[in-house]
């Protein structure tokens, strides 16, 4: 069978902070148009693994392949150059700045160091409307906006900069029901565009409904990688808690 090349393949990633072993031979892969749920307790190592992919931390050992080629990711800029964008629960925007400034933060459009404000505004308006995101005024500081609006800005930022791989760290945790639904709709949109999504979440219900596959970590090690629907929600929860894989009699 003609297996497609994974967007991301993380092989045998280990990470230790001094004496503390955060990850041991962690593996993960992600294919285009796929949502993979990354699960585990606090301290299971899932966040560390995601930070390594996003360039916020570097692995002690192991390798990362992007589209089948070994990638060297030392900092967030490297990760972005590979089309990896991260959407954090709360932290990704500066509340004191408006939407265009946040959208272009660190990648401002400029000519000889002078900001091209008008162009950034126009592109921001386009990027937001492409995802059907409505914001009262582009000049409003984002701290005045609702959680859902802020999350939408983060997502439109990722899309605008042509992300191929989006890491979502608890994307709906801070949101109300209605707003969560909007974010989930956005994610369906992204899938159809062939973007691969890594979804970190504690909400087993969301994970069960919106992910194609799951990767479960416990104590910095892989417990299980499987299609989400191969297990019940209870079985997944039990694997997250116990760290031992549930045996399936009838393998699918």
């Amino acid at each position: 069978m003609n297996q497609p090349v994974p967007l991301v393949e993380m092989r045998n990633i280990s990470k230790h902070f001094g004496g503390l072993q955060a990850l041991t031979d962690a593996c993960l892969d992600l294919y285009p148009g796929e949502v993979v749920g990354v699960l585990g307790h606090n301290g299971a190592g899932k966040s560390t693994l995601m930070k390594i992919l996003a360039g916020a931390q570097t692995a002690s050992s192991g390798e990362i392949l992007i589209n089948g080629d070994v990638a060297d990711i030392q900092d967030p800029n490297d990760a972005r150059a590979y089309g990896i964008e991260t959407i954090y629960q709360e932290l990704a925007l500066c509340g004191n700045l408006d939407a265009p400034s946040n959208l272009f933060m660190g990648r401002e459009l400029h000519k000889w160091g002078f900001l091209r404000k008008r162009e950034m505004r126009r592109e921001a308006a386009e990027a937001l409307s492409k995802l059907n995101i409505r914001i009262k005024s582009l000049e409003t500081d984002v701290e005045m906006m609702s959680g859902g609006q802020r999350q939408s800005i983060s997502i439109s930022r990722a899309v605008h900069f042509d992300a191929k791989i989006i890491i979502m760290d608890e994307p709906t945790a801070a949101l109300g029901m209605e707003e969560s639904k909007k974010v989930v709709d956005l994610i369906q949109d992204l899938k159809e565009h062939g973007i691969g999504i890594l979804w970190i979440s504690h909400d087993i219900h969301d994970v069960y409904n919106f992910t194609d596959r799951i990767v479960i970590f416990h104590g910095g090690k892989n417990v299980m990688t499987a299609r989400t629907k191969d297990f019940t929600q209870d079985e997944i929860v039990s694997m997250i808690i116990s760290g031992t894989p549930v045996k399936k009699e009838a393998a699918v």
Partner: protein
Amino acid sequence: MTMFEKIRTYPLTWIVVVALVLAFALTMASPYFLTSGNINNLLKQVSIVAILAAGQSMVIITGGIDLSVGSVLALSAVTIGWLIQADVHPLIATFCGLAMGTLCGFINGFIITRGRIAPFIVTLGMLGIARGMALVITGGVSYQILEPLFLTIGNSKFLGLPIPIYFVIVTYFVIHIVMHYRVFGQHIYAIGGEERVARLQGIKVDREKLKVYTISGFLAALAAVVMVGRLAATPPSVAQGIELQAIAAVIIGGISFTGGRGLVLTALVGALIMAMITNGLNILGISSFWQQVLIGVVIIAAVWLDNLKSAARQ
């Protein structure tokens, strides 16, 4: 947003209104206040604090603080004086003085970013180091500077305004452009807003901070040039405690002490308000002891107002 709304929410509007009200009140209180002699005097008084406040604003907008500017000013002044009395050409001496201040600022920034030490502590250390070095170099002696270059800066006028005012205008013009029209300025606001986010979004936070502290050091040295001109001497004890005046100007202007918010130009108005209070009370013959009380009250009131504003925003 309507035009009126824009003006109403522009940070400069209210502080300018306060300054105008104060100027009006002083004019009413004393016919001497609005004479050209007094205004010139006021502008000269304000120039040094105003230049320092420009650098201080940038630092405070990143969420930091620079306590060393008064001492760095003194060290730069002393460098200039020491070189001139050693018969170095005054332009070269000035250049070396500017380089000295810039270096001090660079060292501040370097230690803050590399050593991960709080700006308060690093610049407090530099406050001692630079002042001490100024005393060591001179042995505590003040040099007299009678070079025409400095006498011109201190005493001449151009188009009716004292020369130091042009230093202030150029400084604020350049810093305003940097803060609002350059990528660098955008990064400064981002860092002050949420440093972690700035870092995650790929802004080179350490490099930008290093630049900000270096600029603050340079501006302290620029203020030293004006100071040497005004005093026609370089006492190593000059400008003691002036950093607090610069910080006060920034706060009165309404720049947020927690960073990320505020307009550098407001610090200039803040400095003017402080100078007007001092000057006005002098004219009215009120004891200088009361001036300190009043300025203290104004600082606290300014921050309280700022808090009320942000409470209204939430």
